[in-house]
């Protein structure tokens, strides 16, 4: 641990990694709370896996056709929002087919990504860092994009807090109060999509769903209101990402996986304490 703290002062890349974890935690705490209370974890799972399609396509265009406008993270954002809207619209139009669509988006997104990556010359390392994340390789550019997404997600999530609370707690009542419930549901899915993109940089596609739900679920054990749940989820998430990074640094473990195991351990402990 002391080795990590010493390294933190020496290496700017490590400072960027910690900053990324902290910034991602803010979006994670706010949106994760909505995801857990509205019970849309599996939609978040499908969105995160479909992100591979966007990452793969953007990387392919960059390497093969020399497109520099669309960064992999930008491609991920487009794929995520697109998947969110498809799942959202289908589930609003035909409720009974929702799980089929979630499964389809989940797998098709990955398939598209794998096809693009196969046709992109270069290392397969790309694939591994997309799937499992690599917080140590965050660039300055990534960090700025994460700051922008963070501001957008958190500002929207808090400005419409009353509406989201009403929709998550009692959708029918919210509808009767004249709230456009369908619009807020789609907005929530889009915010979830953007949060997923931020988190993909931290822990990778496969592990996103755990970081999105475990801190919020832990906070939900003892929080009296949603606002407090968001604050606690953010704090817990900061602890998970920074703690995971610190624990993994010395022994050279993958940081993302360490964060998730830590998050699961804390959640399990919270279940035992507040059962």
């Amino acid at each position: 641990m002391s080795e990590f703290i010493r390294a933190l002062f020496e290496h700017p890349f490590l400072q960027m990694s910690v900053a990324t974890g902290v910034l991602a935690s803010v979006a994670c705490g706010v949106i994760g709370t909505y995801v857990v209370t509205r019970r849309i974890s599996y939609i978040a799972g499908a969105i995160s896996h479909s992100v591979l399609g966007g990452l793969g396509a953007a990387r392919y265009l960059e390497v093969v056709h020399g497109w520099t406008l669309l960064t992999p993270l930008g491609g991920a954002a487009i794929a995520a929002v697109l998947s969110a809207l498809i799942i959202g619209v289908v589930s609003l139009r035909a409720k009974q087919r929702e799980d089929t669509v979630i499964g389809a988006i989940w797998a098709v997104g990955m398939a598209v990504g794998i096809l693009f990556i196969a046709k992109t010359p270069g290392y397969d390392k790309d694939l591994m860092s997309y799937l499992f994340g690599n917080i140590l390789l965050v660039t300055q550019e990534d960090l700025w994009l994460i700051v922008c997404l963070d501001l957008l997600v958190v500002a929207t999530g808090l400005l419409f807090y009353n509406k989201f609370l009403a929709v998550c707690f009692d959708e029918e009542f919210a509808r009767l109060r004249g709230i456009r419930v369908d619009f807020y549901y789609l907005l929530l899915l889009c915010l979830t999509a953007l949060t997923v993109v931020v988190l993909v940089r931290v822990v990778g596609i496969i592990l996103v769903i755990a970081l999105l739900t475990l801190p919020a679920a832990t906070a939900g054990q003892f929080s009296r209101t949603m606002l407090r749940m968001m604050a606690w989820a953010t704090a817990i998430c900061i602890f998970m990402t920074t703690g995971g990074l610190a624990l993994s640094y010395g022994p050279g473990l993958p940081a993302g996986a360490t964060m998730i195991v830590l998050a699961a351990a804390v959640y399990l402990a919270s279940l035992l304490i507040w059962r």
Partner: protein
Amino acid sequence: MNHVEPVIRMDGVDFGYDESLVLENVNFTIGERDFASIVGPNGGGKTTLLKLMLGLIEPRRGQVCIFQTSPHRVRTRIGYMPQHSQLDPKFPVCVLDVVLTGRLGITRTIGPYRASDKAAARQALHEVGLAEQESRPFSTLSGGQRQRVLIARALASQPDLLLLDEPTANLDLRVQDDLYELLRQLSTRVTVVLVSHDVGFVSKFVKTVVCVNRSVHVHSSGDLDSEAIIRLYGRDVRLLHHEHDGPCTHR
């Protein structure tokens, strides 16, 4: 009873979820400051009737008028209390925040609630006798307290019509009594319509009984007699006599 301008009016309403009709040729009116209960057997169409009044579903034929217009256009004047069993019991929300959601549609679109919203919510909580409990988590309340919070939420919008779906389901008798007394007091100010599965109990409190079993018959509660109940529930029903304040004569 002479209702000059009925609050609720149904004209020749048919409704069905599929080919068969749940409600057929429904005609009735409810006047201002009435205290009415919708009663009838399970599956007879009680909740369906309530949903028609809320505009959550559209009639296949006929017309539903609330305050002389379609339910959609007067939604903000209607206070609604659903069955609380369909809510997530672990949801992290405090009592005041639940009641405040009743202010949506009145308050501003973006940002936090206004001071006037909080005042209205606190007034509603005071009315249902839960003023001291505003910061308690909703999940820690008893069944009766939750029902009261949901009534306060409906009242927070300062409605002219209050619609309640089984407000006394799963409550013990003493709590039921208290709740009906509260609703009776409210009915001196706003029109109150509730759904109940318990015809005998409810007729002690309400002024009007709306009997629903595919067709709809409206009685004043003093006039509800065994013949009407048998017609509602079918021949097999066995009647247990209970005390009545007035003489039982059918219209």
